[in-house]
């Protein structure tokens, strides 16, 4: 049983059977005028709310979408993350020090030289194990 807050009348309303109470259920006199009054009131209220939202959007530059259609604004309003993403790995300061870089390069070259002296350096292109297998 619902109670109509306006007219303090009980509306017979069975929730289980899927009824929906209509304003016509208000069993008071002049109920038809009252019904148009309530819908008029709600229409006015809706218009007022709509006016307020539109004014707010005009002032603050919001993008309105009252019908809720698909809009590209959803993609465009997200902030950029590129800078944050690109700065994940910290800068290796050893790379900037020319002395350290030179020393490392020297180490690499001397190691290569040592291997070559022993005969263990990298083979020429087209002479490796795989290439030999392929050519055979």
């Amino acid at each position, binding site marked *: 049983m619902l109670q109509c807050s306006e007219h303090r009348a009980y509306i017979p309303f069975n929730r289980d059977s899927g009824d929906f109470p209509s304003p016509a259920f208000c069993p008071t006199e002049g109920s038809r005028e009252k019904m148009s009054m309530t819908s008029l009131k709600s229409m006015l209220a809706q218009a007022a709310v709509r006016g307020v939202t539109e004014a707010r959007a005009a002032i603050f530059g919001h993008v309105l979408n009252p019908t809720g259609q698909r809009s590209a604004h959803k993609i465009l309003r997200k902030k950029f993350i*590129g800078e944050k993403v690109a700065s*994940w790995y910290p800068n290796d300061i050893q790379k900037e020090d020319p002395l350290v870089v030179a020393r490392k390069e020297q180490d690499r070259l001397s190691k290569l030289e040592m291997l070559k002296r022993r005969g263990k350096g990298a083979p020429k292109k087209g002479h490796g194990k795989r290439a030999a297998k392929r050519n055979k």
Partner: protein
Amino acid sequence: MGLNMSDNRNLQDQKRRLLAEKFELRRKLYKAFAKDTDLPNDVREKFRGKLADLPRNSSFTRVMNRCVFTGRARSVYQMFRVSRIVFRDLASGGLLHGVKKSSW
């Protein structure tokens, strides 16, 4: 951080990150145009094509948060940018400020 295998992966990832940052604005723009329902369909198609022509490595989804120390791709915490193993080592050594073993 030396010359290991893991560095190759990190280098590739860094390359992707830079590309993603470079193409970000363009990507967003193309995507937005392609999805705008107010535009005519052939214009949308054109922008979809443009979006597909962008290099694949410029997509944010291809970027992987790797551990900064070891290059591990899994179990990497965004707050510290390290994997769970390195995190444990650092935290136990007291090198992470304000991190202590929890017990309550």
